[in-house]
């Protein structure tokens, strides 16, 4: 187990290194420059700026300099926000994005699994149809449309929640709902179908015959197996929520990381592009790694070290 984790960890570092290198050269290959705008000032000023940000150096020198500072977790200065380093931007933005993401995941998983179980237990009854209709609606409405509907209805018309920003728990309700609906619906559908399958299996019948309480059967015996497909897609859902926050943060004016990520690309703010990309990918890779470990805990049949050959 320890060896496996170490190996996976080294692979993670390797992946991040490759991502950083690719991003660096791709971003410089794209035409445009952080200093070129509609309102170009004179050449001296342009040269002063280039020198200031070391953009006048050859690309390979910039690359080695960057990799060197990356190794010490120094992401460098932002070009568009000259008073702050990329590290500061990440320190400021990430906790907020993380908060939004983690609340969303908890809400999505809890409500999705509950909804799925409920639908499975009431198979082909009104509740089942209701839950699945709800799930289809949830999957079909993109989160940005959901966000606008929520703001218009719950914030502007009924005035229950504040329309935007991120200050109190009340401010969190709408963005979390908008972001959680899609993943929740997917989880609900998956839970339902795998639950239906598991409930027909012999060991469940056996448990029933033994007179174990239905609630215990569902949550202790059936759910554990039924959760496997849900855990499998957690990785994809995490990536979805991570990218979903870009849009939701913009709509709700949440000062998270998504803004830096999107704006940096439009502005060709090289250090911020690098910083956010490397950070996001490191985070995602780490989360996938965690999902893998959870997988093993849920199903002891899957031995982590057996997977070495596949990876």
């Amino acid at each position, binding site marked *: 187990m320890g060896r496996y984790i170490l190996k996976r960890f080294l692979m993670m570092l390797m992946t991040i290194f490759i991502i950083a290198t690719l991003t660096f050269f791709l971003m410089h290959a794209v*035409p445009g420059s952080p200093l070129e705008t509609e309102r170009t*000032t004179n050449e*001296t*000023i342009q040269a*002063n*700026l280039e020198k200031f940000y070391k953009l006048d150096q050859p690309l390979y020198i910039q690359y080695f300099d960057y990799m060197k500072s990356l190794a010490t977790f120094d992401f460098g200065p932002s070009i568009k926000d000259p008073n*702050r380093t990329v590290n500061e931007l990440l320190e400021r933005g990430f906790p907020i994005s993380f908060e939004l993401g983690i609340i969303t995941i908890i809400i999505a998983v809890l409500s999705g699994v509950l909804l799925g179980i409920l639908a499975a237990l009431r198979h082909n009854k009104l509740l089942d149809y209701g839950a699945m209709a709800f799930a289809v609606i*949830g999957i079909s409405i993109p989160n940005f449309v959901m966000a606008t509907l929520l703001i218009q209805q719950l914030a502007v018309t009924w005035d229950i929640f504040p*329309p935007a920003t991120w200050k109190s728990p009340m401010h969190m309700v709408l963005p979390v709902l908008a972001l959680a609906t899609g993943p929740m619906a997917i989880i609900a559908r998956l839970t339902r179908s795998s639950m239906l399958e598991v409930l027909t299996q012999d060991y469940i019948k056996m448990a029933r015959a033994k007179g174990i309480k239905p609630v215990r059967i569902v949550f202790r015996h059936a759910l554990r197996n039924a959760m496997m497909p849900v855990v499998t897609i957690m990785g994809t859902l995490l990536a979805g929520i991570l990218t979903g926050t870009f849009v939701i943060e913009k709509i709700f004016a949440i000062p998270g990381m998504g803004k830096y990520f999107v704006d940096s690309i439009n502005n060709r703010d090289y250090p911020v592009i690098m910083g956010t990309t490397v950070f996001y990918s490191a985070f995602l890779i780490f989360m996938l790694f965690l999902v893998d470990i959870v997988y093993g805990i849920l199903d002891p049949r899957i031995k982590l070290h057996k997977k070495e050959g596949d990876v």
Partner: protein
Amino acid sequence: MKKWLVLFLMAMMAFVLAACTASQDAGEEPAEGEEGTAAETGGEKILRLNNAQEPTSFDPSIGFDAVSWNALNNLMEGLTRLDENSQPVEATAESIDISEDGKTYTFKIREDANWSNGETVKASDFVFGWRHMLDPETASPAAFLGYFIEGAEAYNTGEGSAEDVKVVAEDDKTLVVTLTAPTEAFLNIITNPNFFPIHEATATENPEWHTEAESFVGNGPFKLASWSHDEEFVFEKNEEYWDAANVKLDGVHWAMVNDTNTEYQMYQADELDVSSVPAELSEDLMESPEISILDQAGTYFYRYNVEEEPFTNKKVRQAFAFAVNQEDIVQYVTKNGEKPAHGFTSYGFEGPDGNDFRDTAGDLVKFDAEKAKQLLEEGMQEEGWETLPEVTLTFSTSDTHQIIAETLQDQFKQTLGVDVKLQSVESAVFAEEQSAFEYQASRSSFLHDYADPVNALESFITGSSMNRTQWSNPEFDQLIADAKTETDSQVRWEKLIEAEKLLMDEMPIFPIHFYNQVQLQKEGVSGVLRHPVGYLDLKNADKQ
């Protein structure tokens, strides 16, 4: 357990149903939301604005954009300030003496002009601030605005020294500035935040003084009370300000919401006092009693590349320009209350004769189908073309640019019978390729840096980085050069008008519309100044 689940599910269903009903009448919502109630601010007058983004920098020399300078303009103050007619008047300076030759300015700074920390504003603070701006190490993008001052350009380009810049503090309250040439707009130019003073002791001790509210020292009507980065910042009235008696607001709260739809919804939910107008709603909201439409000095236009066929021919350039119906575009396409542009220089510049520059120059290009057709025919004959070389219009990706380009495509087809192609390019790529002259005809914009027609016209002198058309005309260059050194303002004005006419005759560009500033503002808010050129001024703003 089961009952709880049923309840939960029902709550979820109710919510979905609510969301569905919302979508049916969403279109009608705005009309309802307009009756904003007066804000409850506990008796204090707090104006709530949206700055869209984190200010680039509150270092006066760095934040060369509206998101920095709209706020900074109220935290600090230069020697002069724009009044309600957008004319420069004395601010930190009490009196201004201009020498006979128009080159030397002597400013007397008010005795009671203080910094927010209680210290007095000294002439040396201006010297310090201006040298900071011109220092090549600062890499200020706005340093070129200081080139009117003798020695400034040399210092900024690394050829001179700070001591050679002719900005001298004769004593604590006297500042003497020498210009390279008489510059009529100088008092206007120095209203720009770039020319604000910097509290020398603070900045020397802590070069990062402008990055946090705690260390920020200003001399304007408001002081920076708190600044939560990327979220909001708060102004409080600055009691140390020399004219504090006339500042009516107790404070200003600035949100940072970078989405016009969200901004508008916050305005409707009464969380903001001022909002911009989402593009999709502009047509409906134009009639609102809360709307304010003001000129902004700047032009939306297309550049030709005069080195690429068919725009090598002047008559072809003119033909395309005369085929554009600017009135139709502003009325039916942009629908944002802009004024159609029949020349390059926008409205809002009054000459020595009291007339607006634009009115004196007249309508130099106006939709004329017959003339356009004839010009195209003549142009093609001159060049000996049987068919017109293919034309592509390029613009940076945006919905507004797209619909305007599509309208132009249609108008060229209707009037000239020419099929032009459209190309949409990502904006950073667009900026680079346009500067490299890779487009035949491309969308552009110009916004004034200072309030004088010469600022717009000098864009097209040979070698200017704003030119980007490859057009070069010695006569035009000469007119601009002459206007810049001319001491007689009437003669200077005539030269500029001549330059404008020449530009519109040679037509390296064709104009579409002038910019404006459209805002929704709650009833009860007054005195917020927005100038055609310049930044938001809240000094006399009030809120009922």
